C-alpha cells in the first residue's frame, strides 16, 4: 500500500468537494475491492474519500412511486435484511461472505461494475435508476462494459432506486474459488414485461438476454426458457473455470431456474 490521505465527510456536498479539490481522489465504499487493490499497490490514489459516514447515503426507504430507494453507502447486509424486495434481498444475502456483506456497499459495487458481481444484475434486471450527486441514470444507460460505467470522474452514487417487480429471483452459479458468479441471472417480472439480466458470463459485463425477455413476457414459465436456444457463446468469457460455451449453456439453465424460483 502506498501512503494516502483518508477523508471521512458526513455530508454528500462535502464528499463532492473533497473529490473535486484533489487531482487524484478516489471514493471509498466498503473497500472490498479497493482495499485489496491498494494493498497490492495496483492503485495509488492521493486521497480516499470514505462514504461510510454520510448518513444521508445510508438506509432504505420507499418513494412515492413505490420504488425501493437504497442509499449508496448501504451495506449488502442491510439490503439482505430488508426483505421488501425479496429478489433483491435474496441476491444481497448471497454476495461474498458475512464480512463482505457487512462492509461492502451497493454504491461501491455498482461503481466498480465487476463483470462477475451480483448487484449489476439486480440493477439492470430491475430497470433501476442510479442516482448520483449530479443526475439520475437509467440502468440501461449506466453499464458500459467490464469495469466501465457512465460515471464521470468524481461522480458519486448516492442512491439506487429499484422498481419492485411482481415476482423476481436471482439464480447464481458460483465460481468455486472466488464464489463470484460464474453465471448469475436476475429475472424480474413487471406488469409491462419481463427483464432478464446476466452477470459473470460476458466479456462486456452485465447484459440483458432479450430472447429470454421476449419469451417470458409472452409466457412466464420455465418451459418458455426450455424451448429457447442458449445464447451465443461469442463474446462470453472463457477462463480456468469454464468455457464460453459452458457459460452460454449456464445462462439458459440459470434463467430457467430463476423463473422457476421467482416469487
Amino acid at each position, binding site marked *: 500500500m502506498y501512503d494516502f490521505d483518508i477523508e471521512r465527510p458526513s455530508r454528500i456536498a462535502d464528499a463532492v468537494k473533497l473529490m473535486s479539490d484533489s487531482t487524484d481522489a478516489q471514493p471509498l465504499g466498503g473497500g472490498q475491492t479497493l482495499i485489496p487493490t491498494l494493498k497490492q499497490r495496483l492503485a495509488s490514489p492521493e486521497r480516499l474519500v470514505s462514504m461510510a459516514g454520510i448518513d444521508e447515503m445510508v438506509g432504505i426507504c420507499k418513494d412515492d412511486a413505490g420504488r425501493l430507494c437504497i442509499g449508496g453507502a448501504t451495506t449488502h447486509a442491510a439490503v439482505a435484511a430488508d426483505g421488501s424486495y425479496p429478489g433483491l434481498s435474496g441476491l444481497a444475502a448471497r454476495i461474498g461472505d458475512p464480512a463482505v456483506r457487512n462492509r461492502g456497499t451497493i454504491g461501491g459495487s455498482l461503481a466498480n461494475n465487476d463483470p462477475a458481481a451480483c448487484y449489476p444484475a439486480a440493477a439492470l434486471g430491475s430497470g433501476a435508476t442510479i442516482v448520483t450527486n449530479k443526475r439520475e441514470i437509467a440502468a440501461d444507460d449506466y453499464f458500459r462494459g467490464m469495469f466501465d460505467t457512465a460515471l464521470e470522474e468524481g461522480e458519486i452514487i448516492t442512491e439506487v432506486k429499484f422498481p419492485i417487480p411482481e415476482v423476481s429471483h436471482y439464480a447464481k452459479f458460483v465460481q468455486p474459488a472466488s464464489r463470484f458468479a460464474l453465471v448469475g441471472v436476475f429475472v424480474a417480472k413487471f406488469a409491462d414485461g419481463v427483464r432478464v439480466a446476466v452477470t459473470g458470463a460476458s466479456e462486456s459485463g452485465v447484459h440483458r438476454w432479450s430472447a429470454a425477455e421476449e419469451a417470458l413476457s409472452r409466457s412466464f414459465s420455465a418451459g418458455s426458457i426450455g424451448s429457447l436456444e442458449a445464447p451465443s457463446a461469442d463474446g462470453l468469457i472463457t477462463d*480456468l*473455470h469454464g*468455457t464460453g460455451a459452458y457459460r452460454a*449453456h449456464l445462462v439458459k439453465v440459470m434463467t430457467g431456474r430463476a423463473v422457476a424460483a421467482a416469487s
Partner: protein
Amino acid sequence: MPKDGGIGASSKRREDLRFLTGKGKYTDDINLRDQTYAYFIRSDVAHGTINSIDISAAMKMPGVERVFTASDFEGVGGVPCGWQVTDRHGQPMQEPKHPVLAEGKVRHVGDPIAVVVADSLAEARDAAEQVEIDITELPAVLNMKDALNDGATKVHDDLTSNLCYDWGFVEENRDAVDAAIKGAHHVTTLELKNNRLVANPMEPRVAVADFDSSTDEYTLYTTSQNPHVIRLLMGAFVLGIPEHKLRVVAPDVGGGFGAKIYHYAEEAFCTFAAKQIGRPVKWTSSRSEAFMSDAHGRDHVTKIELALDKDGKFLALRTDTHANMGAYLSTFAPSIPTWLHGTLMAGNYTTPLIYVNVKAVFTNTVPVDAYRGAGRPEATFQLERVVDKAAREMGIDPVELRRKNFITEFPYATPVAVEYDTGDYHATMDKLLELSDHAGFEARAATSKANGKLRGFGIAHYIEACGIAPSNLVGQLGARAGLYESATVRVNATGSISVMTGSHSHGQGHETSFAQVVAEMIGIDESQIDIVHGDTAKTPMGMGTYGSRSIAVGGSAMVRATEKIINKARKIAAHLMEASEADIELKDGQFTVAGTDKSVAWGDVTLAAYVPHNYPLEDIEPGLEETAFYDPANFTYPSGAYGCEVEVDPETGKVTVLGFTAADDFGNIINPMIVEGQVHGGLAQGIGQAMIENCAYDDDGQLLSGSYMDYAMPRADDLPMFTVDHSSVTPCTHNPLGVKGCGEAGAIGSPPALVNAVVDALQRAGHDVTHIDMPLSPDRVWAAMNS
C-alpha cells in the same frame, strides 16, 4: 469405558489452548531489536535472460540498508537437492544449480532476482520499485512432453536437455512386463493427469535471521517442518556455517503439508544478509509470493496399462509417467515420483509383474516437491482408477475385482521392492461397505433419479508406505540423509519430564499424543510430561515431520529412550527398597517388589537420582536423562478402503459430494480423536484436489491461479459429513508401538474414490464417460457428458 489418559485415550489437544486463543508464537511473531525487512523482487516472466540490474537509484532511497543481487552470492553454494536418483542406464540425474538469487537467467514466474533490505517493509517495497531490471524474454518451457523433443528450448543451458532422469523400476522386469501385457486376455489402458496443487498452509513462510558477531553465532527462526535438516543443508551446503555456530528454530508452525519441509532460498538469504549488514533480517511471504515460491505438489501425466486374465486376476502393470520438477530441484523432489511412487504401484494387489517408467522434466514453473502423501497419492490415483475402469470393461463388480486380487498373506514381498508386514484388506473393505450402507445404494440412486440427479458410488483401496525410513535402504536409493529419528527424555528431580524430540509438530498434536505414550509407559499423568520440539539448540539431531513418520519413527525413539529411563529407575528403586532389580515392577507410577507390599513412588526414585544420598553411586551415575536414536527396520504400511457417494446435476455438471466413508487400518492408535482429525484434514485436501483445486499456467508460463480468486481451497460447505473408522487393526510388526501413521491417508485414498464415483454416476445414466481429469469442475463434467 474410554480411557481418560495414556495410549488409546482421546486426550484433548493441549496445544489448542494457545492456538485457539491467539497465544501461539509463530515465526512472524518474532521481532528482533534493530531488525530490517527484506523484500524480494521476483521475475514476472517465466523464462528470460537478465541483461542488467541497476540498483543505484534504489540504494539512495530512504531507509535502505542494502540491495542484494546474485553478484553478492559469489562463492555461496546453491540451494541443494537432498536426493540423487539414478536413471535406467545407471547414470545420475541431471542436477542444475539452484542459486539463492537468479544468476543470468530467470526460470519461473516468482524466481527471486534481487532483494532490498530496509528499515521497514514499506521502504523496502518503495526502493524495490526503483530497481531497474532488463530482461529479454525467452520462450517458456511448459508442456513436459514437448520439453523432451529434440531442439526444445532448455530451462538450463548447461544441461544436455530438459530431462532430469528417465527412471525404470524394476528395470529387470521391463521385458517380462511387456510380454505379459502383449499376451494378456484383457488390457485396460488409461491416460490421466494428477493435477498441480499449491499447499497453501494458513501461515505463509517466514524467516528471521540474526548474527552475533561477538560469538560468530547465527540464529534462524523459520517456518519449517524439520529445523535440523535446514541447519544441515543450509549450513553445510549453502553458507558454510558449522552446526555449532548455527541454531535453527521452527517455533509454532501453522501448517506445512510438505511445503515447509524444504530448504528455501529466502532462509539462506536472510541468514547470509544478517551477517553482511550486521542487523537481523526478516522476511514474511505475502500470499501472492507463496503461490509463486512455495514448492508446488503433484503434476504428473501418466499412461497406465493393467493386464488381466479372463477371471480378472491381475497379470501385469505398466506405467509411463512424466513428472514435473519445475525449474529447479527442490529438496526431495527427485524422490517423489520414483521411490515414493514406484514402490507403491502394487497397491493392495498380488500383481506379479510391474514396471514403472518415470521421466522427470524441467519446466519454467515453480519447483514441485512432496505434498501431503508425496508420490503415494499419485500411485494410488492411477492404480485405483485403472482397476475401476478394468472392472467396468470386464463387467466385474469393482469391489469383487479388488477382492479377487487382494494380498491376503503377510509378510508380502511386492515386485516393486517393498515388503508389507501386515494388513487385512478384506476387513477394511467389509467395514467400508457396512458403514457406507453400500447395500442401500440402489434405493438412494432411485431417489436421486426421481429428483433429476445422477447418483454414483465410488471406492478406492489404498496402501501407503509411511514411517520413512530405514537409513541404509534410503541411502542405497539416493537419499543424501539418514531417516532415523531421535528423542531425549529428561526426567526432572520431582518426576516431571521433558521430552526433546526430533519430530516437529505443525498441527499434528504431538505435544498431546507423544505425552500420552510416555505417560502410559511410566503410569503417571500426562500433565507431568512436556514435549519440546523445533529448536536445534534444544533437541537432538532429528529429521523432522513428513511422510506420516512422527509416531512410527519419532515415537519409537521416544519409547526407546523412555525404556532406558525405566531400566535405570528400576535399578534405583531396587536400591531404595533393598530388593533385587529383577523383582521390581513398575505400575501406575509405583515401583513395587513383586510379591511384597514394598513400594516406592516414581517421584521418590527421580528425586533420589538427583539427590543421590542413598544411591548406588558405585554402579550407576546420578541423574535421569536418556537419548535414543531409532532407525526403522522397514516402512509401515497403513491401508484402507474409501467410499464416496456423489450426485451430479445433469444440467450443470455440478458434483455434490453427499457422503464420504474412510475405513482405515493404522495399526495401534495413540489418540483416536487426533487420528480422526488427521483423516478429516486429509480428506478435505483429497476432496479439494479432486473437486476444485487446480494450479494452472498459461502458455506463456504466467500463473493463472495465483490467488484465491482463482485457486479454490475447499471450504466447510464443499465437504460432506465424514464417516471415519479405524477399528480394523493389524499392528505394525517392527516398531515398539505397533503404529503405522495416519497423516496422509485421507489425501491418498480420496481422489480416486471421488473420480470413480462421478464416472459411476455418469455411466449409470448412460454416458460413455470413462475418465475425467481432476479437478472435477462443473464445466469439465458437463463437457464430458456432452462430448
